[in-house]
């Protein structure tokens, strides 16, 4: 029997890879299960609400796209439309050529949309040097590999694999220590950030109302790629819109919890256009490429709801098939249950319909999906759409009871033919055990005609819990909560006095400098050991701070130095993420939560990968 492509593709997979994927996937699944109830009073209600909001987006997509485009233009973001991958590549390359005619480094933040359009190869061909700056994507790139997971690109690699790759590329002394390896990557990529003329990113959520692009990440490479270079190009699938900024208070924690079990990612970067005249740093041009590439077709068809997807990867992690075969076996950048629907829906069932068959239909994907996409139902519809074997003979048998009965009686005796043959390749064939039901039934004394059974009312499923009212509104209680959250992430609160012990040189933002005296400052933010910024406010529920751009406020000061000191005025503390989002001004801002982090290498949590490894908050 000819094996399905996914079986073929996974046949040569080493056991160590399968183990690595299974271990990480199980870890993320458990983290998600643990995080959701701690982030939401009622996770079910949160998922339902998220699905409704995204469905509303799909229902009004043309209008929202228009609104988004107008808002972007108003804030200085240049908007481009790409019908397909080729047009998107051409647009990006045109922008790059205009910005940097001589070629050079293009710093790339992790983005599935740019994977989808094959941007790296095109950039290379056009004479640029695309550099993946996410740790996992960087490993993928130097190994000439492909990501095998949409959130954790090197889920299929062990730390020993990474160690060999780094040594081969001359990044430093051979080591299998994830922390040392992370440092090597950090040092190597620093130079790339500084020399890149262009940064390319994806977009997690674009807000139609304000034209703001929300980018989420943990490492800090995304912010560096979109802050240090002169030009920022964001590539985004047209469905990744949310109507209002308020919606982010739901979607940011839902995405983070579903993806990695966090309550919010370390950084949520809010891009509101290019650097303004009074701002000291940031890109002078921001471009948004709106990518269709088959999405309009999917929107108009029976698989529309796959476009609700927020790319959290939870369905991959929980999927037993994905855990066995890893991402590459799917033969497309979107693997797992998400890919098994999206890819045939986008690219046609002729070529990719087979993916819908690579499922035991266990339903775990639908159960974990934060936007409740009915993936199994869509897999069934895809199977019905692709031409498969005819079951007419089976139907004929099943509509003739006597034929059926003799067929079933013969079945256990025929393990050498039909489906039982394929079955028996990996398992012992099933045997009949004990009595035959029908014989037993007929040997019983004649039964009384059926009477209907009195029905009890069926048990109602638990109604959504009322969300808890924010009890403590007084600032001290909020600060205590903030501190607890921050410390969980290994950040800390300190007094100004304690900071004197930190080794300089210091980079101090203008508005922070007014607050207190500093010594041994530097003019080169990349050389500083400590960066000091003044925050808009702190958010108690997540342990986050809100930082914005503005006169005398640098973006890089919060990113480049290994230690970041954040001054927060005593009274500027809010309880919830929603309140924090509401406090942001219209300028490019960031919600930063704890130190920069990664778990890309063998699942080990390392702090300070690209952004600061130490985060100190001072109440002033």
């Amino acid at each position, binding site marked *: 029997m000819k094996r399905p492509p996914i079986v073929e593709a996974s046949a040569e997979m080493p056991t160590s890879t399968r183990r690595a994927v299974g271990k990480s996937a199980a870890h993320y699944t458990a983290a998600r299960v643990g995080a959701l109830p701690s982030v939401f009073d009622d996770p079910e209600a949160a998922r339902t609400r998220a699905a409704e909001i995204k469905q509303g987006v799909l229902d009004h997509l043309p209008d929202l796209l228009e609104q988004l485009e107008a808002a972007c233009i108003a804030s200085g973001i240049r908007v481009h439309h790409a019908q397909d991958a080729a047009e998107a590549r051409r647009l990006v390359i045109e922008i790059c050529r205009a910005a940097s005619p001589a070629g050079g480094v293009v710093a790339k933040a992790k983005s599935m949309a740019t994977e989808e359009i094959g941007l790296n190869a095109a950039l290379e061909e056009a004479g640029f040097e695309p550099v993946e700056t996410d740790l996992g994507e960087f490993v993928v790139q130097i190994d000439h590999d492909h990501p095998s997971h949409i959130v954790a690109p090197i889920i299929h690699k062990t730390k020993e694999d990474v160690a060999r790759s780094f040594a081969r590329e001359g990044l430093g002394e051979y080591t299998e220590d994830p922390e040392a390896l992370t440092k090597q990557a950090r040092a190597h990529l620093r130079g790339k950030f500084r020399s890149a003329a262009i940064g390319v990113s994806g977009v997690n959520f674009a807000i139609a109302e304000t034209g703001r692009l929300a980018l989420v990440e943990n490492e800090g490479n995304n912010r560096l790629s979109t802050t240090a270079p002169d030009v920022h190009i964001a590539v985004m699938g047209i469905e990744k819109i949310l109507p209002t900024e308020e919606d982010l208070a739901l979607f940011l924690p839902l995405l983070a919890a579903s993806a990695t079990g966090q309550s919010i990612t370390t950084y949520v970067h809010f891009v509101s256009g290019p650097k303004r005249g009074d701002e000291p740093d940031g890109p002078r041009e921001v471009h948004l490429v709106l990518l269709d590439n088959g999405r309009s077709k999917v929107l108009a068809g029976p698989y529309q709801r796959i476009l609700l997807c927020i790319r959290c990867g939870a369905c991959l992690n929980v999927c037993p098939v994905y855990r066995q075969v890893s991402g590459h076996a799917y033969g497309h950048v979107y693997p797992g249950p998400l890919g098994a629907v999206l890819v045939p829906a986008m690219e046609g069932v002729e070529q990719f319909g087979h993916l819908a068959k690579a499922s035991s239909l266990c339903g775990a994907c639908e159960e974990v999906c934060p936007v409740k996409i009915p993936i199994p139902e869509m897999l069934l519809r895809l199977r019905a759409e692709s031409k498969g074997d005819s079951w007419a003979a089976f139907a004929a048998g099943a509509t003739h009871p006597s034929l059926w009965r003799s067929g079933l009686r013969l079945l256990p005796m025929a393990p050498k033919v039909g489906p039982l043959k394929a079955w028996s390749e990996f398992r012992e064939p099933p045997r009949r055990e004990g009595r035959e*039901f029908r014989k037993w039934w007929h040997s019983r004394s004649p039964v009384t005609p059926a009477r209907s059974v009195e029905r009890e009312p069926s048990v109602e499923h638990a109604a959504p819990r009322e969300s808890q009212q924010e009890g403590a509104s007084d600032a001290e209680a909020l600060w205590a909560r903030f501190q607890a959250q921050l410390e969980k992430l290994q950040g800390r609160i300190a007094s100004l006095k304690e900071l004197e012990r930190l080794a300089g040189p210091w980079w101090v933002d203008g508005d922070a400098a007014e607050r207190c005296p500093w010594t041994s400052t530097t003019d080169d933010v990349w050389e500083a050991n400590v960066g000091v910024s003044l925050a808009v406010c702190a958010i108690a529920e997540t342990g986050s701070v809100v930082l914005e751009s503005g006169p005398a406020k640098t973006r890089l000061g919060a990113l480049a130095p290994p230690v970041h000191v954040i001054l927060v005025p005593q009274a500027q503390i809010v309880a919830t993420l929603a309140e924090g989002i509401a406090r942001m001004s219209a300028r490019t801002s960031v919600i930063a939560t704890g130190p920069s982090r990664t778990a890309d290498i063998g699942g080990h949590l390392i702090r300070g990968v690209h952004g600061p490894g130490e985060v100190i908050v001072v109440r002033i």
Partner: protein
Amino acid sequence: MLTCLCDAFAGEVGIAAVRVLEAAGCDVEFLDAQTCCGQPPFNSGDWDAARTVARRTAALFQGDVPVVAPSSSCTAMMREGYAMLLPGESTPSTFELVEFLVRELGVTAWPPSPGPAMERSIAFHRACHGRGLHLGDLHEQLLSTVPGLQMLPFAQVEQCCGFGGAFAATHGPISAGIGMEKLEHLLASGADTVVSGDMGCLLHLRGLIERHGLAMRTQHVAQILAEAVPQ
């Protein structure tokens, strides 16, 4: 409704299901003309063939007598599958065995009249189609009331066993790989028997157990419940 797999291989499970329903006070009827719910062609993508079978089965079971199957998979087919396949048509009210006992009959403890303690320790595998039926831990809850029955915990309970109907044949190595991982966790629980509510899972796991010479038995939940009923 007897499932095809019970019909062909595991008559004892059907017998046990009848005994359990009778112990709960039901009069049980079996229609000799029953065949299949139509799930195999439905899952394989031949909806015309599936519709033919489904229409016949729906007609056969029409009326207000509830239909009970010792399988969440066949139940899900007759509930959710028929809704997709035969939209707008009337379909029988079908329940999975334990779902029927607990949610329809209001059974909260098993057996209904006290019997001797069982002294067994098992690992319970949740069949995946219970998800669509929102069964949650209904089986475990009922089993936990059986005197002397110990349910041993194991890792990654939410994971499928890898059966998946035709998938087990078409994607053999993947299906078997998933099953072996499941068995690894089940064996680590220390239980000597894996119990589940679906014959598909059990036949698949048993096939793997026998091929690899593992020390584990398989039993359907109906058999455990029947065993607990005093003779």
